[in-house]
C-alpha cells in the first residue's frame, strides 16, 4: 500500500508505526463501520418508504394479498397487522431519522474518530476491547430503539424519539468512547496536536454533555411548556453543529492534506475556525422556533449567532480551498479525495444556506416546508455522509491490508449519490418555496 502523506517518503520507522496503529484499530473500527453500513441501507429504505408515502399515502399500508396469506400461514396471528401498523408514516419517518442519524452517522463518525485519534496520537489503540464493547452496546441500543419506534413507542420529540432507557444505553456507550479518547490523548506521543484532534476531542466532549442534558430535561425531569421546545432545539441543532460538524471537519482536515501530500494551508485559520465554531454554533437552536411563543431576545440572539456562523464557515472554506489549490487534478483519480472535497464544498453551501434561513423574512416562507428537509439533507448527507464515505474508502484498505475490488463500483456509488443528493436538495428547495 502506498501511503505517502505529510511524512517523508521512505521513512521506514514511520511506516511501521502507522502499520501497527492500523492493525490495532482493525476490529473495533471495522465493527463500527460494518454496523454503520447496515443501518445506512436500512435507514435509506425507511426514508424511501416515508418519501413515497407522502405522495401515495396508501403505499403498502396493505400488504399484497399473496404476501399476507403467506405470512398468516407461517407466522403467529396478528403479524400482518403488526407489519402494516409499523410501516405507517408516523412510525417510519422517525425510524428513518434515527436509523440514519444514530445508526449510520454516529457510529461511522465514531469509527473514523477512533482511527484518527490513534493515528494522530501515534500510539496503537489502547483498550480495543472497551471500544468494541461500546460498539456492541450502541448497536443493542439501536435494535431496541428502532423496534420501539416501529411498534409505536416514539416519544414524538424530534431527534429524541428513543425512549429514555434506549437513550441511556447510547449515552453509556458514548461515554465509554469519550473516556477512552481522553486516555488516548493523555498517552499520545509528544509533538504537535493536529487540528483534527481538537475537533474530535471537542465533539466527544460536547455530545455526551448535550445528549445527557437534553434527555434529563426532556425525558426524566421534563421542562414544561415552551421551555421544552427550547431544550429540544438546543439539542437538535447542537447534535448537528457540535457533534456531526466537528467530526466531518476533523475528517476533512485530515484527509485533504493527507491525500494530496501537503500540509494544511494555514494553522492560524484552523484555530480561528475552530474557536469561532465553538463560540457561535452552540446558540443556533433558537432559529428553529422563529415565530414561536418565546422571548424575542432569545430568538434574535440565535439569529445573530446563526449569521455569525458565516465566519468559521468561510474561514474553513478558504483554508480547505487554499490547501487544495493546484491539486484539483487529484480529484480525477482519488476516490477518497473526490468524496471528501464534495463534502467540504457542501459544508460551505449548507452552512451559508442555513445562515440565510435564520433571517425572519426568508423563514416566514420556508418554515415548516420541504425547504428545511432539503437543507438538512444538504448538511447531514451531502456534507457529512459524503466525507464519511471518503474516509471509509481510505481507512478500510489500511485496516484489512486489501485494496477495493472495483473502481467501477466506487464510481457508481459516487455519481448516483452525488446526482441523487443534488437533485433531492434542488427539488425540495423549489417545492418548499412553492409550498411556503
Amino acid at each position, binding site marked *: 500500500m502506498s501511503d505517502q502523506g505529510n511524512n517523508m517518503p521512505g521513512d521506514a520507522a514511520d511506516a511501521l508505526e502507522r502499520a501497527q496503529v492500523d492493525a490495532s484499530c482493525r476490529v473495533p473500527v471495522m465493527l463500527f463501520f460494518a454496523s454503520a453500513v447496515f443501518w445506512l441501507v436500512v435507514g435509506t429504505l425507511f426514508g424511501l418508504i416515508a418519501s413515497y408515502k407522502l405522495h401515495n399515502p396508501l403505499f403498502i399500508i396493505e400488504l399484497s394479498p399473496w404476501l399476507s396469506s403467506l405470512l398468516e400461514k407461517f407466522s403467529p396471528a396478528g403479524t400482518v397487522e403488526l407489519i402494516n401498523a409499523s410501516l405507517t408514516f408516523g412510525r417510519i419517518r422517525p425510524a428513518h431519522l434515527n436509523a440514519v442519524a444514530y445508526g449510520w452517522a454516529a457510529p461511522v463518525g465514531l469509527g473514523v474518530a477512533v482511527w484518527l485519534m490513534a493515528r494522530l496520537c501515534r500510539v496503537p489503540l489502547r483498550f480495543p476491547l472497551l471500544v468494541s464493547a461500546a460498539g456492541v452496546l450502541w448497536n443493542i441500543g439501536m435494535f431496541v430503539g428502532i423496534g420501539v419506534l416501529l411498534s409505536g413507542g416514539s416519544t414524538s420529540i424530534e431527534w429524541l424519539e428513543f425512549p429514555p432507557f434506549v437513550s441511556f444505553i447510547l449515552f453509556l456507550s458514548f461515554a465509554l468512547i469519550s473516556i477512552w479518547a481522553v486516555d488516548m490523548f493523555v498517552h499520545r506521543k509528544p509533538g504537535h496536536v493536529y487540528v483534527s484532534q481538537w475537533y474530535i476531542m471537542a465533539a466527544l466532549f460536547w455530545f455526551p454533555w448535550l445528549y445527557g442534558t437534553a434527555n434529563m430535561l426532556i425525558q426524566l425531569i421534563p421542562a414544561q411548556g415552551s421551555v421544552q421546545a427550547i431544550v429540544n432545539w438546543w439539542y437538535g441543532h447542537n447534535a448537528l453543529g457540535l457533534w456531526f460538524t466537528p467530526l466531518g471537519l476533523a475528517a476533512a482536515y485530515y484527509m485533504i492534506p493527507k491525500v494530496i501530500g501537503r500540509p494544511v494551508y494555514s494553522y492560524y485559520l484552523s484555530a480561528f475556525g475552530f474557536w469561532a465554531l465553538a463560540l457561535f454554533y452552540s446558540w443556533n437552536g433558537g432559529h428553529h422556533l422563529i415565530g414561536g411563543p418565546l422571548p424575542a431576545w432569545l430568538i434574535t440572539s440565535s439569529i445573530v449567532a446563526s449569521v455569525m456562523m458565516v465566519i468559521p464557515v468561510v474561514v474553513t472554506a478558504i483554508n480547505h480551498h487554499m490547501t487544495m489549490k493546484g491539486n484539483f487534478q487529484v480529484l480525477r483519480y482519488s476516490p477518497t479525495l473526490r468524496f471528501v472535497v464534495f463534502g467540504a464544498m457542501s459544508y460551505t453551501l449548507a452552512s451559508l444556506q442555513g445562515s440565510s434561513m435564520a433571517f425572519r423574512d426568508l423563514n416566514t416562507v420556508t418554515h415548516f416546508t*420541504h425547504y428545511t428537509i432539503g437543507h438538512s439533507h444538504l448538511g447531514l448527507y451531502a456534507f457529512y455522509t459524503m466525507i464519511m464515505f471518503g474516509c471509509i474508502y481510505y481507512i478500510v*484498505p489500511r485496516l484489512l491490508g486489501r485494496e477495493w475490488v472495483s473502481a467501477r463500483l466506487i464510481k457508481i456509488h459516487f455519481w448516483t449519490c452525488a446526482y441523487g443528493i443534488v437533485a433531492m436538495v434542488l*427539488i425540495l428547495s423549489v*417545492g418548499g418555496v412553492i409550498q411556503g
Partner: protein
Amino acid sequence: MLQHPENPTNTFSNIVEATKPWLRGRTISGVLILVGHLAFAYHFVLMLLKFGRADGVGPTLLAKPESAAEASS
C-alpha cells in the same frame, strides 16, 4: 404556481396538491441514492469477505494519475 403567501383564496389542500410533483421527484432522487448505497454496501461486504485485491499494485483509483508519485489513494 407561486402564490402570494397571504392570498386568502389559496386553500390548504391546494398547497398540499402543489407539493406532490416535487415529492415524487424526491422519491426518484431517493431511489438513485439507494442504488448508490447498495453498490457501496455490496463493495464493503466484498471487502469484509476478503475479496479485496492483495496484489500489491497499489490503491484502487478512479483513473490513471498523471505521475506515479502522486498515487496515494
